[in-house]
């Protein structure tokens, strides 16, 4: 039962996110709004998620890469789009991604708090 309850909660908040997105005509995807709503729900009510929900969430998240495979296969069909300007595209993609990673990591590392728990898995 607790498994079904966890799936119900996640899908319910996704649905709420999709509904809010449709009502407000925002570009933010429904699941992202659902994520914000679910976090806000627990933070505002000062409650901890149940262990069953934590297990379901950790289970889904530990396979997150798999869930991107169908969309990833889709790009193979569209790779021809890159042919026209492959050099500026590849240099910009690699260069800009690297710069973004380094600047974000450096600011957070330099000014953010240290983790109190190290090496703990999801």
């Amino acid at each position: 039962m607790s498994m079904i309850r966890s799936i119900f909660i996640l899908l319910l908040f996704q649905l709420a996110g999709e509904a809010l997105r449709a009502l407000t005509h925002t570009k933010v995807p429904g699941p992202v709004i659902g994520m914000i709503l679910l976090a806000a729900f627990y933070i505002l009510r000062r409650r901890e998620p149940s262990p069953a929900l934590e297990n379901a969430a950790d289970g889904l998240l530990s396979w997150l890469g798999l869930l991107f495979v169908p969309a990833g296969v889709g790009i193979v069909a569209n790779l021809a789009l890159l042919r026209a300007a492959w050099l500026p595209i590849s240099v910009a993609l690699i260069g800009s991604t690297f710069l973004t990673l380094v600047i974000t990591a450096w600011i957070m590392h330099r000014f953010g708090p240290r983790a109190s728990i190290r090496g703990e898995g999801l």
Partner: protein
Amino acid sequence: MNWSTLPHTLSPGIVPLFAIVLTLGAYLFGVEVQKRLPHPLANPVVIAIVIIGITLRLLHLSYQDYFTGAQFIYFLLGPATVALAIPMVRALEHMRRGFWPMISALLAGSLVGLVSGYAIVRLLGGSQAVALSMAPKSLTTPIAIAVSASIGGIPSLSAVLAILGGILVAISIDPVFRWLKIDEPSAKGLAAGTAGSGLGASRVIPQHTLSAAFAGVAIGANGILTAILAPILVPLLRHW
């Protein structure tokens, strides 16, 4: 017998099932390869995409055929995104202590991603349409498509770049952090989510609950920030 049309010949209903089994099998194979060959390029997502791409071509199956089954795996991306709220709730105290550094890092990362993507394409002689398609590449794919359309980019190109950028982050995040000599799970999650959204962060999310929490914040905040920043910044960039 033409074996290349085998899946269709057996039964039409077998194609979706075949697509699901193929996706799970190719990913599991990728995980095994990664275990034995701990090289960044031995990434399960990349390996699975290559195996599936080749298999579909050999069996003359279209992407539409494949998606009849793969959509069930794709669907789980929704609840998985919602599930990022759980590590966020767990990391609340850590986020309170690091609130301003987190906001500064997010803002800087969003700005750098947007402007440098555009600028490098222009510097190397790429067209403005390509440069504008590059600008939102760090965002989660649906937002990248929407932002691209609203600033005059090519939405389908932005979608491809968002996925390729995500793969690039998933592959390079561990080597880049070793090179930076930073071993901070919150910084890792935030950087991966800001630069490569969900796909980029899929590599670090299982590593640490703080990485998952900060990746969730970055995926949401970068999408919202860039959706606001892009229409303001892009007219300024266009002059150049």
